């Protein structure tokens, strides 16, 4: 089964319309998608052929009474058992991919808290050593000591993550349900009030990836954009260190973003859409 997945990964199959996934988790999902798409093509195509064959071959040609066949036990058993086997196969592959996508191993390389609210996003990073915010997700953290990235009037908030390591995201909402969705990562998760949900991103390459809220959250649901900027681990470390230093020097400082570094791999989505103020005039 793993071999099959490897084969799929090896041959250059078409993407069938999905992003190929810029995280390891997204890549696992993408391969599962390719498998399901091919299975769908095969099964759906087979049934479609049967329907089309029946339509064309058995058009009324005469007034003869056709044979009044009412059942055929062997065939019926066959098309009960074979789909069950297909379903079991699809389920097994699903569980394998699911375990990879949902895994949250210990000792992540970075820990970020995402707070969703009407109608924007806030990304919290640990404060510096000695600050009251070693882990923003902890209930004992002093929230004022965490490095916070929020959106500006003319720019969506950007979450900075390092590549090549597990980034653990703790997601919650401050009011209603929101959907944290990054298309290029083939991933979304609800931000709920009252409990925190945790998942990992392990980015495969640098780049800018757009994100958006997918769960209806009120009037400006359509405008709840955000960005994910993946940078190298060195860049991430130096960026975070600089923000922590700026924060401890001046508690009201606003974090600056690191410049997006493209390593030549095409980013699979456009950078954040700068929204003018006029769209809020509705």
């Amino acid at each position, binding site marked *: 089964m793993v071999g099959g997945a490897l084969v799929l990964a090896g041959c250059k199959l078409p993407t069938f319309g999905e992003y190929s996934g810029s995280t390891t988790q997204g890549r696992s999902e993408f391969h599962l998608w390719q498998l399901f798409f091919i299975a769908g093509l095969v099964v759906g195509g087979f049934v479609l052929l049967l329907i089309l064959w029946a339509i064309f071959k058995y058009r*009324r040609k005469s007034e003869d009474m056709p044979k009044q066949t009412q059942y055929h036990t062997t065939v019926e058993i066959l098309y009960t058992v074979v789909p069950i086997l297909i379903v079991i196969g699809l389920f097994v592959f699903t*569980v394998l991919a699911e375990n990879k996508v949902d895994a949250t191993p210990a000792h992540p390389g970075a820990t970020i808290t995402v707070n969703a609210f009407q109608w924007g996003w806030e990304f919290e990073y640990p404060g510096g050593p000695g600050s009251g915010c070693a882990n923003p997700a902890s209930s004992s953290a002093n929230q004022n000591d965490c490095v916070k990235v929020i959106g500006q009037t003319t720019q969506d908030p950007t979450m900075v993550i390092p590549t090549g390591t597990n980034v653990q995201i703790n997601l919650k909402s401050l009011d209603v349900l929101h959907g944290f969705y990054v298309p290029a990562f083939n991933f979304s998760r609800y931000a709920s*009030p009252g409990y925190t949900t945790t998942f990992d991103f392990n980015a495969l390459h640098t780049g800018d990836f757009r994100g958006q809220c997918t769960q209806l959250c009120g009037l400006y649901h359509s405008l709840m954009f955000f960005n994910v900027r993946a940078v190298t681990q060195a860049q991430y470390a130096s960026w975070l260190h600089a923000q922590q230093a700026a924060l401890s020097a001046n508690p009201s400082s606003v974090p600056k973003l690191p410049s997006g570094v493209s390593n030549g791999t095409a980013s699979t989505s456009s950078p954040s859409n700068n929204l003018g103020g006029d769209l809020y005039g509705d």
Partner: protein
Amino acid sequence: MTDVADVSDVLAPPVPGTGVEEAPDLHLPAPGGHGPEDGHVAGHGHEDHGPTGILKWLTSTDHKVIGLSYMITSLVMFYFAGIMALFIRLQLTSPHSSLLTFGQYNELFTMHGSLMLYLFAGPFAFGGLANYVVPLQIGAPDMAFPRLNALSYWLYLTGSITMMLGFLVAGGAASFGWVAYAPLSNATSSPGIGGDVWIMALVLTGFSAIFTGVNLVATIFYLRAPGMTMFRMPVFTWNMLVTGILILIAFPVLTSGLVMLFCDRHFGTHIFTVTGCHLVNGAVTNTCGSPLLWQNLFWFFGHPEVYILALPFFGIVTEILPVFSRKPVFGYKGMVFATMAIAALSTGVWAHHMFTTGAVLLPFFSFLSLLIAVPTGIKFFNWIGTMWHGQLIFNTPMLFCIGFLLAFLMGGVTGIMLASPPIDFATHDTYFVVAHFHQVLFGTAVFAGFAGLYYWYPKMFGRMLDDKLGKWHFWLMFIGFWLTFMPQYVVGLLGMPRRVASYPSNLGWQSYNVLSTIGAFIIAFSFAILLWNLWKSWRKPVPAGDNPWDAHTLEWFTTSPPPHHNYTHLPPIRSERPTWDYNHPDAVAVPHGIAAETASRARKKEPVA
């Protein structure tokens, strides 16, 4: 009111040699049993006409009148919801359209979904067609509880009016989506009585559905004609039985959830809300409400609901395909068991709508959701098997059935994809899901629904619909349908979320949206052709006769339209297609579960002793 003259017809002896047996004496009460609004004195023997005009409609308990009322009302709701859809599509034609404000847009998609799902698809199927057809198909004079049936209709009508009132109240209609997720639907985030009006509308229609469910199950269990065993009922009736049971399973949960939501909104409870409750160490305690609870309750209703919507239409297709293939249903027992399996499984998969919460048992729901493909596949193969080696006649009902098969095939395959949590993570709440559910719902409620309309129209009104116009209707709708929803799959995979009134202009999404809008207007235009067809059949009626399609099931044995209390004569019932057996004694298939000797006796046209 039944005439004395009718009774004497029933008592006439059968014509020898035809094998026709008389309908049972209905034992109508002796003249003298009168109701409150009838002023006639007992025993005169003249015809009592009962109420006329509008009072006749307001007091009717005849399942045929109620069924027609349901169908007409639901089609009106369908047109309203369709117009809302056109506005939605117009808004999305350009990325930052100012046609609608964000608030208006949210109201429109909420009401579009609510009207289509609560006020059209379900009521048309189980309130309309099933009400009309099921008693006829089992040889019953009416539904088991006629006054309850009438009450169901009035609750539905007032519920529909209440829902539409939302547009007239201050603050506008409900705008939290047809699923009304908490906490968005609570009083803080959605103040205004639009939401309350929506809740009350659903309480009314919910009870309407529950009473109809009771009626359906009771009628099918208790009012079948002699010889009409359970395994000789038409598959449409079987599907309605299963639908009735599903209604009883699902709708009470919705109604309870709505009551709780109303309490949260107005009586200060915290069933679904977290705000204002004590967090201990940043975590909620047991004294807090849970938005997740609303989702669990809603989807325990919501998933069986979509099968309540689908199963009747599966039944319609299973009625029509055999007739126009000139063969019996292939795999009758398989169909019945598959329907029951679909219903049973559908009650266990509700949290596949909640995969992205990160708070549900993924493998349990994923496995059961994938498993539903098996009985659905069985039904598909049986439909194909029905057509196999048949003599297919491609008139309008048949074309709509083929349209259903093609639409539901692809919709079903994408549903299997969505049943896999990782794929759902990537596609949830995007236009991929929107395209999926429109394919399955449109395929069932619209294609199969119109197939049923064209098929049973002659029985209901005694006149034919024009087949040529019907084919124009079909082809335009078919082309419009694929043009509307295929681009939505693509743009959903590209990352366009649902329920958005605007989208970025630099992502290349606009061209797909424009195609989709064009398709929507083609669909809209195709309905104009249906209206023209209906009008034409009224102005220049073409008489239909009892059985214009040479159909199989019992309702085609009686007149078009059927008389009061449905049957004056009934044929012997020895298989699931008694009318066919009566008309084509040589083409009797081997019926399920009957002794061979009785089968051969039926072939010899002898009256059964």
